[in-house]
C-alpha cells in the first residue's frame, strides 16, 4: 500500500466522522466544525488523486491541487457566513441548537 492510498483511506474515514458529527451533534457551532472535517476529508481524496497523477517530473498533478486550494477558500467563505448566521440566530432566539422540537419543550 502506498502512502497515497493510506491517506485515501484516511480521507474516507474523515468524511464519515464529519458526517456523523454533522448529523448527531445538536449544537450548530459543532455542526459547522464537523462540516469542515467532512470537507477536509473530501479535499484529502482529491489530494490522493493528485499524488497518483504525479508525472512529468512533478510530485503531484497540479490541477486537482489548484481545485483544492480554491475549495479551501470557498469552504472558509461558507464557514464565515455560517458563523455570522449562527451569531445572529443566537441574538434573535437565544438558542445555540437546532431542534425540530418546540422551543418551549427544549431541554426536557
Amino acid at each position, binding site marked *: 500500500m502506498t502512502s497515497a492510498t493510506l491517506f485515501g483511506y484516511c480521507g*474516507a474515514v474523515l468524511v464519515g466522522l464529519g458526517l456523523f458529527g454533522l448529523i*448527531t451533534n445538536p449544537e450548530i457551532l459543532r455542526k459547522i466544525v464537523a462540516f469542515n472535517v467532512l470537507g477536509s476529508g473530501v479535499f484529502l481524496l482529491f489530494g490522493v488523486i493528485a499524488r497518483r497523477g504525479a508525472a512529468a517530473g512533478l510530485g503531484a498533478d497540479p490541477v486537482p491541487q489548484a481545485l483544492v486550494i480554491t475549495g479551501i477558500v470557498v469552504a*472558509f467563505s461558507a464557514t464565515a457566513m455560517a458563523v455570522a448566521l449562527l451569531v445572529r440566530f443566537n441574538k434573535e432566539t437565544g438558542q445555540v441548537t437546532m431542534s425540530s422540537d418546540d422551543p418551549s419543550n427544549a431541554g426536557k
Partner: protein
Amino acid sequence: MTYYVAFDLGLAGLLIAIAASTICARAAFVSLVLFMIYGLLLAIVWVRLSAVDVALTETAIGGGVTGMLLLGAAARLRATKASAAEAGLSFRLAAGALCLLVSVALGVVVFSLPDVPPTLAPIAKENLALSGLGNPVAGVLFVYRALDTLLEKVVLLLALVGVWSLAQDQAWGGIPGFRVYAQPNSILVFLAQVLPPIGIMVGIYMFWAGANHPGGAFQGGTVLAAMWLLVMMARLRDVPAINALWVRQLLVVGPGAFLAIGLLGFVFADSFLAYPPDHAKPLIIIAEATLTLSIGVTLALLVAGPPERMPQQ
C-alpha cells in the same frame, strides 16, 4: 523507506484520533482547539502528498483563520447553554451505521482507482514556460483556470457582503464587534508590536515566491490578514468602520484589477482572461499583488464579523 511508512501510519492514526476527538469532545472550546491542531496535522499530510501549496493554504486557513473565526463565535455564544437534548442512542447508532457505510464506499473507491492514473501534469507543464511562471499550481490558478480564481475572489467578497448584511439596522456602516477577544495584556501588545514587521515581510515574500515556488497570493494575503488582526486585537489600531472609503477600495482593488486584466484579454489576446504572450508574467504579478492586499483585508474583515456599533463622534 520503512521510516516513511511508519511515519505515515503514525500520522494517519493521529489525524483520525484528533478528528474523532474534535467531533466527540464534550466542550465546544476543547473541540475548537482540537480542530486547529487537526488543521496543522492535515498540513503535514499535504506535504507528504507532495502538495506544498495546499499545505500552506491548509495551515493558514484550516489551522489559523477558521480556528480564530470559530473561537470568536464560541466566545459570543458563551452565555447560552445548549437547550436541545443529545440525540438518543438508537439515533446515534443509525447515524453511525450510515456514516460507516459512506466511509466504506469511499474506501472501496480509493481501493479501485485505475492502475494507470489519469493526469494532466504533462500538459500543465508543457505550456507553463509561455506564462513565465515556474510553479505549475500557480500556472493552473492564474493561467489555465484563471476564471475559477477570479470567481473564488468574488465568492470571498460575496461572503463578506453576506456577513455584513446580518448587522442590525442601527449598526450598519459601523465598526465590527471585535471586543470578544481577550483584553490586551502586555504579552499580546508586545507580540503585536514585534511580529507585524516580520509577518508583513513573510506575506510579501510568499506572494513573490509564489510565481516559481510554493506560495502565492492567497497564502501571502492570509499572513497579512493575521498580522492586521493581531494589531487590532491588541488595540494598537482601531477596527475600521465598514463604510470607510479606503476599506471599500482595498476590498475591490484585487478582483477589480484581475477583472480589468481579463477584459484586456479581449483586446490584446484572443479571449477573456488570456494574456498577451510577451507580457504574461508582469500582468500576472500585478493581478497577484493587488489580490494579496484585497484577500488580506477581506479575510480579516470576515473574521471580525458584522458591524455592531457606530464610531464614536
